């Protein structure tokens, strides 16, 4: 992995219980390698390979997130941004929120 100013700095956040799959850590500041154009779809696989600690089936289903997880870029639904095709920008905050059903 590259370091310093070469890579793409983004913030990855988890909530609604999704953080339990990532060592209970809700916020991760990461530097993605500068060797490619990063899309949200590529980021999903990168997260699976680099941040995910357990049970990938609770995060991904096929090449997207499992039903019940919302993906937000800078607090906006990824559906508004082209979903997996969205090209990540420097400083983006990507939030994965597991929806709650209890009451």
């Amino acid at each position: 992995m590259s370091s310093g100013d070469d890579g793409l700095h983004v913030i990855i956040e988890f909530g609604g219980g999704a953080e339990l799959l990532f060592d209970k850590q809700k916020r991760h500041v990461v530097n993605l390698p500068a060797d490619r154009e990063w899309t949200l779809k590529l980021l999903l696989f990168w997260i699976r390979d680099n941040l995910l600690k357990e049970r990938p089936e609770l995060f991904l289903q096929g090449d997207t997130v499992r039903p019940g997880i919302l993906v937000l870029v800078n607090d906006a639904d990824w559906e508004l941004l082209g979903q997996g095709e969205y090209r990540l920008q420097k400083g983006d905050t990507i939030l994965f929120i597991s929806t709650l059903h209890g009451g």
Partner: protein
Amino acid sequence: MEKELVKEIAELRKLLHEKENKLAALRREKEILQSYGLSNNEVCKYSRQILIPEINIKGQVKIKNSSVLIVGAGGLGCPSALYLAGAGVGCIGIVDYDDVEVNNLHRQLLFTEDNIGTPKVDAAAEFITRLNRNVKIIPYKLQLSSSNALQVIENYDIVLDCTDNVATRYLLNDACVLSGKPLVSGSALKFEGQLTVYNYKGPCYRCIFPTPPAPYTVTNCGDGGVVGAAVGTIGLLQALEALKIILEMPGVLTRRLLLFDGTETTFRNIKLRPKNLNCAICGNNRTIHKLIDYEQFCGAKANDKNPDLKILRDDERVTVEDYHKMYNSQLTPHILIDVRSPEEFEICQIKNSINVPFTEIEKDGCLALIEAEVNKRQQEDDIVEVFVLCRRGNDSQNAVKRLQKYFDNPNVKIRDIEGGIHAWSRKFDPLFPIY
């Protein structure tokens, strides 16, 4: 003696209730009604909100003439009902099929210890009536289903989703879309909560979540736990959104989702997608025209109770009675692994059990720990007996399945204990708390 007292108190309470109603009716007759439809008593009671320009007399009349249906009298429904009643909503319907249980009381503050075992909707109605006699409460002690939902909802202006399970959430959404009612949806778990308004100038639940989550990805409050003040915060906000809809105010939480994190005390407002033109129930070419079977659609029951799983073969399980015999006789040396969370293990535990939480069981450290125990036993016995225990006998079966992969050895016999520590508590250790 205890039973007689309980009975006597219930009778006295009923008598008190009747007398209170009589007194309220007497007072109502003497009330002076203003031409705009509020009595002097109501003007005085609601004056502190009538003074707000967004509400004023016209708004208070709207609130009085409105009706709200609250589905679920739990940690969300209790505070919403309380604040809607306080604000003077004319008619509040409350749907819940459950009776009050002692584990409800820390967050469902309409109920008192005296209400345990009585229907939630009746206890709620009694409390709210005492709070505000101008509010008409209609209790529905029933499980909302595809056959009754539309009939119940039709009488109300707004519906609050205060339920605790996925199947009922889809049912309520579809029923609200079919009957054109706004749905104020809240949910909570642990220290977190989520809130949004569906089917009101924006998307419905299905627009955002066309596919239900797999049942194994859903955590309920009975397993995950919930903080009363966190779920209560969301319940209060549901009441607020309902009032704003009644008052036809702008700024309703539609096409937005509010995320509340009580651990950091943050509120985050995220922007959701608009109505999906291809939505199965609210889109242009809808494929759902009437209510469907939601338990089948979600692959899960329409409640938050845990069903009894049957994953293992009979010879891979031991009844709690048989385990109790082995435990007492001490003739069968064995390893007992308790796969509950450390928090649950702390509540109560069987002597000499080892705590390896279910979520950690396949981690290297935990496997090594179990392996060390197995090796130790192997030096003394040809066959090593391992028993796995959980809360109710569901996780323990999955844990056995996982462990069998790692200990693929005919001399290591791994079984689970049916019914878990609950069965043990009920049958053999009445001093254990059942949680």
